[in-house]
């Protein structure tokens, strides 16, 4: 008995020492490990994003409560857990794989927005670039039956051309990239709809394109047995290609002269020109690469076999969701991988809500709130930073020992 209590007190003692070690400053210039951890840039980004997510979810829960208080708890659970509520391992794995396939184009659009933003451009036209790439993918696979890598390369070129158009207008005519890419979104939508509807890829009887998995199986992405492993027939290498490009983006931006030039131009166009950078070329290339990344999403999604194009009447949400994912991921490609998965997880869960009580757009609402808060991220990060530096202190107790100068003066 005695031994055990000594043992526990020893453990308690060592835990106490461990925390002391963590939180105690080593000396004046060398803050404690805990403080170092929280002052890390990456950690602060993650904390900021988590705050955005938490507040977004809170708003979502309140919305559910307002619409119908009875089902709010279970509805919220559905949104948060999505396929994890199925209670059957293989089914959960299958839906996980499905969500991953859906995440792929979102990740590509997020990378596109992120790359442009790092180069000082706001690419709101990822939707249009994605649309053009979708059109090329569908034509190459369903009509020409080209192998997947050819389709992918052509689609990327298509996206890059759309992107560089915005860059050209910006570089040579000083047209604001936000306005021009919005206009190009709509132009792309109408033209792509026209082309697809006139092409043999269009199945008039069901008002959508033919199924790629059935009609163009030679163009499908290789699966390397992943489809059998996960139980989801359309799970191929798409996601891994996208992740590979995420890593490439990091390397280009952080480790190459080329990436540095693009970022320098974004930071100060005239300064870059002064430093001998061809700033027009930089702007056009930044937008072309951004467009190419958005375009990459289309073949990786459609050639999984899952995608069907239905000629929407409004610009698809994909590019705008990409903006959300990029900012939620703290403008970091690795962060974008997690944030785009999270957003896809939430959005696909929206469709699983009980339609007698709620509508699937509740999930989109949550995403909307999260991205709105992400716009604050700059300010929020300054707050987190100040908090970790001890510049903001919370006073929970009343100050007792307030210096009472006035009384003494009297």
């Amino acid at each position, binding site marked *: 008995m005695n031994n055990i209590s000594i043992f526990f007190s020893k453990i308690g003692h060592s835990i106490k020492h461990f925390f002391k070690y963590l939180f105690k400053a080593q000396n004046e210039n060398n803050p404690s490990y805990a403080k170092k951890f929280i002052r890390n840039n990456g950690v602060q980004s993650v904390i900021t994003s988590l705050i955005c997510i938490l507040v977004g979810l809170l708003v979502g829960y309140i*919305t559910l409560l307002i*619409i119908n208080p009875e089902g709010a708890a279970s509805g919220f659970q559905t949104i948060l857990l999505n396929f994890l509520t199925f209670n059957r391992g293989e089914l959960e794995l299958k839906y996980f794989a499905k969500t991953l396939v859906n995440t792929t184009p979102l990740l590509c659009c997020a990378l596109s927005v992120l790359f442009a933003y790092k180069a000082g451009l*706001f690419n*709101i036209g990822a939707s249009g670039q994605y649309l053009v790439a979708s059109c090329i993918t569908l034509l190459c696979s369903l009509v020409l039956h080209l192998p997947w890598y050819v389709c992918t390369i052509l689609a990327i070129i298509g996206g890059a051309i759309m992107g560089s158009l915005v860059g050209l*207008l910006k570089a040579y*005519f*000083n*047209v*604001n990239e*936000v*306005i*021009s890419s*919005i*206009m*190009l979104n*709509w*132009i792309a939508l*109408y*033209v792509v*709809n*026209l082309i697809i509807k006139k092409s043999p890829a269009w199945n008039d009887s069901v008002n959508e394109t033919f199924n790629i998995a059935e009609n163009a199986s030679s163009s499908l992405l290789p699966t390397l047995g992943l489809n059998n492993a996960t139980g989801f027939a359309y799970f191929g290498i798409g996601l891994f290609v996208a992740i590979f490009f995420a890593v490439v983006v990091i390397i280009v931006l952080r480790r190459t002269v080329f990436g540095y030039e693009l970022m320098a131009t974004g930071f100060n166009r005239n300064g870059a020109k002064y430093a001998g950078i061809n700033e027009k070329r930089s702007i056009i290339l930044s937008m072309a690469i951004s467009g190419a990344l958005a375009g990459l999403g289309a073949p990786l999604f459609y050639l999984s076999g899952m995608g069907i194009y239905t000629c929407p*009447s*409004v*610009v698809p*949400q994909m590019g*705008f969701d990409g*903006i*959300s994912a990029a*900012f939620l991921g703290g403008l970091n490609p690795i962060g974008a991988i997690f944030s785009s998965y999270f957003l896809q997880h939430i959005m696909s869960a929206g469709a699983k809500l009980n*339609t*007698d*009580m*709620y*509508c699937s*757009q*509740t999930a*989109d*609402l949550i*995403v*909307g*709130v999260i*991205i*709105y808060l*992400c*716009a*604050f*991220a*700059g*300010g929020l990060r300054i707050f987190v930073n100040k908090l970790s530096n001890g510049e903001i202190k919370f006073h929970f107790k009343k100050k007792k020992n307030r210096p009472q100068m006035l009384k003494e003066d009297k």
Partner: protein
Amino acid sequence: MVLLIQYTIIFAVVLTVVALAGMWSERSGVINIGLEGTMVMGALAGAIAMRYLPLTIPGGLYVIIVMLIAIVAGILYSLLLALAAVTFKANQTITGTAMNILATALSIVIVKAITLNDDGKASVKLEFIEARKFFVVQLGGFEFNWFMLVMVIILIVSMIVLYRTKFGLNLMSCGENPQAADSNGINVKKMRYIGVMISGALAGIGGLAFIMGANSSWQFDAGVNGFGFLALAVMILGQWKPFLIFLGAILFGLLRALSLSYTSFGWMALDSTFYLVLPYVVCLIVLCITSKKSKAPKAEGIPYDKGLR
């Protein structure tokens, strides 16, 4: 031909009002990409008001109440932008984009919740067949609606207030050089809040005018069909000046109306895609020509920081 003129005027009214909304915000120094979302919220509030207001209210009063509700909704929604962009110095473009995403989702959630609650079946459509009759007056084959009058008033008032009053000049100075304005005792943050709120009010009523222009019901999953963005282009085309904006809006209204009425002209029977794309292509070309010597407010998009010079 009547149809073409009818649609041209409807679209020109909406574009003028919403482009003026954008102008007020940008003149005070805040880029308002969220116009599209604000229009949706104004339209939504108006449509809900028309669903629940009893038709026994006299016509004139009814019109005013519905318009005021749309205005208030627009102002409230635009406060989201003012809060983020002015108080918290957030990136204005991202905030605006977020507002657009949020507005579409929010409007669908609200409309579906209302229809589910009332009719037992969720739908994205709100109808205002009876209420719309208060808003229109038939003059021969031509349908006149009260928004046209409102637009003229807004245009004239905007021109007078912006150029001929102390308030308007103060507001413009906040968009050009906020530091100088501040040193003259102008409260820059307050001015920008007011600019964004005027913008919200106009965008709200513009959204209502858009959904009521030619329809007696509206499907809220389509937002406002990108008219907020088109209005931004009109604003740039009009070089942030009210009367030029009005002229630009007529041009774009005409181009947009063509896509709805070209079938009535035999010789214009091209594919509809051509007419749908036309306004956007013309817009891009015009932007190419005008953007080189743009008269954009110099401080737009930059959060005001007292410490900067």
